[in-house]
């Protein structure tokens, strides 16, 4: 059964400075009118019980899809079919009124989300407990801390019991403990067979929660497929937009990196747990004492994953003028599948003389099975039980 169906949906916004002013009425001649297509001819479907992730840059149309699904705005053309009760967890406390107490706001906000008063009364205790607001429940929410505000909002929304749940970056609220609680609740709903549409910049969360993903770009769907594939595509797209090139700089630098290639000796792809070779090309215009080369490999999030460096070898070569290569060999690559960004740098006597940020990417394909953050090289064997059977009987 299909829960959501988008059929050639487009959404056009008129670009105006601020509403219609009287000027528009008496100004003669053709009027300047700008249209902005937030979505253009978008079609996709979500099956019952499926979790769909939607990724894309800011302004790609993610939020527009969410607003269309939750009826906040209507499409300019096309048709959307929704089967079942739908709840959107978007800025969960926007319906709060500061003058009312937490309790009164539960009733007001719950009703805005489409809950019956009887339903709210039934779930009241559970909502209050989930929010952790406790004895402040009768205090006007204008006296709440921002954390309490958001927690109460989410607690109400989490008790909606919808068939289809829309999430937009709500996991980015509250402290770590509360986030874990929210995630538990969402996982429970998933286990229960509810449909989920998840919009996020947190690619790891999309990978973890979703069965399928869409990549949006400038209002149309670029890729529709398994989360891994979509995330890779998205990351590649992101990297293409930024970074420096490895073209030679005709500068006074004494040494510079000129190329980097990653290869595997026995296959066209680089795989987790398989050998890898990184070949760094350089050119020096004069001799460089105590040279150190670094190949820094970054997660998409920007954190350093690992570094290949000549520093650890203890030998600090004196580079002669001219071109050359440095080859790093790794017998079993420990990093997990994904797309990484690469920085190159050369140091001399501890001073950086060349740094190329984000000048290359490294794609790692699945190889050895990895659960967790990295691959650990290991061997294993089974020791057969001897003649004595194991008993749990205590004398």
């Amino acid at each position: 059964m299909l829960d959501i169906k988008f059929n050639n949906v487009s959404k056009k916004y008129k670009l105006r400075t601020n509403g219609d002013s009287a000027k528009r009425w008496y100004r003669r001649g053709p009027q300047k009118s700008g249209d902005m297509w937030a979505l253009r001819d978008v079609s996709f479907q979500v099956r019952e019980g499926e979790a769909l992730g939607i990724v894309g840059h800011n302004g790609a149309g993610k939020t527009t899809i969410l607003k269309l699904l939750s009826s906040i705005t209507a499409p300019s053309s096309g048709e959307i079919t929704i089967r079942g009760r739908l709840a959107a967890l978007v800025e969960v406390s926007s319906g709060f009124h500061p003058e009312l107490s937490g309790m009164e706001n539960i009733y007001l906000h719950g009703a805005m989300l489409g809950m019956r008063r009887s339903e709210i009364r039934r779930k009241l205790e559970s909502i209050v407990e989930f929010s952790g607001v406790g004895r402040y429940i009768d205090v006007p929410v204008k006296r709440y801390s921002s954390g309490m505000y958001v927690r109460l909002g989410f607690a109400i929304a989490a008790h909606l019991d919808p068939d289809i749940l829309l999430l937009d970056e709500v996991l980015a609220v509250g402290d770590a403990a509360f986030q874990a609680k929210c995630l538990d609740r969402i996982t429970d709903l998933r286990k229960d067979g509810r449909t989920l549409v998840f919009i996020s910049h947190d690619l790891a969360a999309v990978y973890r929660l979703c069965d399928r993903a869409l990549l949006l770009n400038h209002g149309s769907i670029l890729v529709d497929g398994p989360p891994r594939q979509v995330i890779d595509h998205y990351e590649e797209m992101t990297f293409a937009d930024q970074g420096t090139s490895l073209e030679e700089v005709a500068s006074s630098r004494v040494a510079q990196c000129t190329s980097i290639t990653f290869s595997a000796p026995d296959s066209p792809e680089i795989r987790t747990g398989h050998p890898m070779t990184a070949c760094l090309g350089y050119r020096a215009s004069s001799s460089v004492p105590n040279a150190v080369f670094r190949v820094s490999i970054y997660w998409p999030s920007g954190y350093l994953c690992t570094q290949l460096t000549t520093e650890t070898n203890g030998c600090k070569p004196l580079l002669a003028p001219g071109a050359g290569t440095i080859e790093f060999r790794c017998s079993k690559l420990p990093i997990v599948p994904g797309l990484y960004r690469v920085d190159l740098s050369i140091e001399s006597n501890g001073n950086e003389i060349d740094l190329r940020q984000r000048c290359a990417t490294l794609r790692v394909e699945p190889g050895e099975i990895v659960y967790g953050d990295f691959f650990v090289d290991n061997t294993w064997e089974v020791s057969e039980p001897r003649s004595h059977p194991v008993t749990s009987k205590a004398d």
Partner: protein
Amino acid sequence: MSTPPEALSASQIAEKSRDVEAVVPPEGADAIAHVPVRPIKVIRPPSFSLSTIFTGLRTLTQYSDLLYTLSLFRLNVRYKQSVLGWTWAALQPLALMGIYTLIFTRVTRVETGGVPYPVFVFSALLPWIFFSSTISNAVNGLVLYPNLLTKMYFPREIIPLSYVLAALTDFCIASVILMGVMTYYKVPLTLHLLYAIPIIVVLGGVAAAVALFLSAIQVRFRDMGLAMPFLLQIWMFTVPVVYSLQSVPERYRAIYLLDPIAGLIESFRQVVVHGAAPEPRSLAFCAGLTLIGLALSYAFFKSSEATMADVI
């Protein structure tokens, strides 16, 4: 002291749902534990059509609890952090009654047909304030909290309609004062007072129609909110509040009564002060006009609702 059986903690609920999953396959669990028939909703580009009235009303009934909660909330918030609280609902018409009585009995005279002027003016001020306070609040209702429109969905007409219900409550409070004033001036309270109920229902319909129409326009053109205070002031003098319908020259009266508010306020005063039944033709005319106006206004509201979040 025992907790009701439905009141489960969050962890218990989670536990329960896991149990269900363990016993029956997910499809089965879905059919048993949740709504068996799921509503199907089709969203299309907005258009002005009378069929939206029916789909709109169906959704509105699903959200009837919100209308109730929101109306209650209007009253609650209005009187929060105010010392006099609910007495304000009575103070406003009483103060107006005082000043109009001073002007129209001391400065100049108005023909009331023998009714004491305070009762005469107060009985018309109540329906007028019901109408005008609904309009002046509802016009700004949608734009007051733009977040509600851009971040979440519920039938938007609930906002203007909640002001109608809140004003109706104020009207009921002030009605008690009206009966007090009538007793003080020895105007007899008759069973004909019950005729006031249909009159107020129709007046509420007019107020709802005008509120829906103007609040939808206000989202696009803020001129509405700016014009409303003085338009309402002018409007008050075009209906028989401070003077009687009899003071209007006979040949203009037909045009004058085209405004349903004028007819309704006059009927209300007839019923309350003179203890007379309202003229059925006039009331039927007002009711018919209101019904048509309400339908058109609601259809207009629903067609502009779809893009309110984009233009606000």
